[in-house]
């Protein structure tokens, strides 16, 4: 990873590398400050702080695949760099937009699960916003399909609920 471009005078902790082990057994090297953004990794590192050599530590993350991790790590890294500078909120928002714009619906779900598990709340917020935005004008059927939800209403119950507020079902986007 080409992180050497950033100033070399910063604290040594950011230069140390930690190994994260994904659910599919792949090992990924990340800077320690990035790893500390992930709650399970932070807890693990604190528990094993007596070990002198950080390089030797391997943090298992059994709920996240290597594919998702390799998307998350650059995001968190850049986001950290951004928030370290006195930049405007607008810029961070633009960065978030850029990150989420091209995500497929499947990827969005996977990332939400990962962000939730890893406790990266700022990312989870952004992803929830994007999801809400993607489904807000859609039909009920589309939303069930989108999130893989089983309809547990009887047809009568559903019809009754719909009849209570027919206006809410008007002006819905094409699926």
């Amino acid at each position, binding site marked *: 990873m080409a992180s050497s471009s950033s100033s070399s005078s910063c604290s040594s902790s950011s230069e140390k590398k930690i190994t994260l082990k994904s659910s599919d057994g792949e090992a990924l090297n990340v800077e320690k400050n990035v790893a500390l953004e992930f709650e399970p990794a932070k807890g693990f590192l604190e528990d094993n702080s007596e070990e002198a050599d950080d390089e030797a530590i391997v943090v298992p993350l059994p709920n996240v695949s290597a594919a998702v991790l390799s998307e998350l790590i650059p995001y968190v890294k850049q986001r950290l760099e951004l928030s370290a500078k006195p930049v405007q909120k607008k810029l961070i928002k633009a960065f978030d937009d850029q990150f989420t714009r091209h995500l497929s619906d*499947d990827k969005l779900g996977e990332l939400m699960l990962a962000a939730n598990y890893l406790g990266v709340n700022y990312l989870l917020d952004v992803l929830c*916003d994007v*999801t809400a935005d993607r*489904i807000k004008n859609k039909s*009920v059927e589309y939303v069930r399909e989108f*999130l*893989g939800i089983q309809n547990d209403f009887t047809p009568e119950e559903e019809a009754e609920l719909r009849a209570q507020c027919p206006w809410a079902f008007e002006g819905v986007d094409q699926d």
Partner: protein
Amino acid sequence: MDENVEATVTELAQRSSETEIGKEGCRRYLPQDIVHNILARLPAKSMLRFKTVCKNWRDMITELDAIGVQQSMSKVTIIYRTNESKSLFFKLKNKDRENCCLSLEADYIWAKKACDKFVLFSCQFPASCAGIQLVVYDTITDRFRQLPKIPFYIVATSFYDLSLVYDASAKTCKVVVFNCTCYIENCCIYTFNDNDDQWGSGSNENWRILKLPCLQGIMTSSNSSVDVNGVLYWIARANCIDHGALIQPMDIATEKFMRFIKVPCQSWIKNCNLLKIKESLCFMNTASTDELHIWVLKNSVESLWILQHKISLSSMIGRPTSLSSFIQHRFHPWLVVEGSGNSYILVTIDGLLAPYWYNLETKELRQIALDLGALNLPEELRRLAQDYNISKGFYLRTILFIDDLGPDIQRRLAGFVAKTQRQRDEEEGLRRNALLRQREDEERVRRDAHLRRKQ
């Protein structure tokens, strides 16, 4: 840590087997707290629609909705004023309890309208005879901007009406002023962009005169104009019709007028108001001594209305004994707070004092007890405040639907207006001085020439 992870994994597996989600769904299965997080970001209409997704969602949305209604109710600020130009701010904390703040200002400064994040203030200084000044306040960035002088003469006691509308997509805000003393041909409109750099000072843009499609008398009541889906509606009397009222729609973005909408009743047009309920235009009028009707507009081209709610004295729960007739007493609606379950209208009776929440579904009227005891007020104001519902010295000015409006804002606003006024006066003074000097010079030249001729 590992134990936690294992617990989450098994919990997830259990949950998905419980809800019998197939392999397809399992891939996208989201835990409850994430779904909750997403639902909380949806607009009201979508929430209502998604109640039919599944039982779990229905329950979560019902719960969120109750919280949302509470939050909306707590954004209300009620402002009273006294005969001595003192004002009382009440900020409701929820539908029953409330907090209150107070201010003492000799100047005439009133919050008139609120929309989205903006509040429109109208101010006048006792010494000034220049008419009222309008100032817009942005509650998010906490900045003011002064609007230029209104092209016609309005003082604090004039009969006029203001509308404030915000188009979030275009980031433009529009202020419309109606003179209500007579039948009018024109109203004036002012537009500004949220992103321009004129916050904190006066605005450069000027008012534009907008010609109305016909001569009309604009009606004033607690809620005589409302915007629904990008269209501003107001109640007007057209000159050609003796008793009836019409509703004039105007597209906010293009400023084009649409065809008049006939009101659903022509016989009794006093005490009528426009409301926005469930994204539709509603017309509220007095039908008889003991009934108010709320009509919903179904088709604006054919002026097709459906009678949606009847507010009747006999079925009202918690009716105060003083309210014995809808004709003798005025029942003023101010704003609507709605969730997907219950809708509440904030009303006052006879336009005076205590406000109530009226629940459209349960037909319950509940007084908002404004607890003055909890306030830490200076003695003089405490006395005023205690008397406020006896002496009738206070009367209701405005009910705003916005957070964080306190006396401090009024004080700072007064400072801002005074400053911009001073700047304007100074500019005016400079210009006048320059003119005077020029005239003096001319005079001197003329005098010199005259003297020379004499010699």
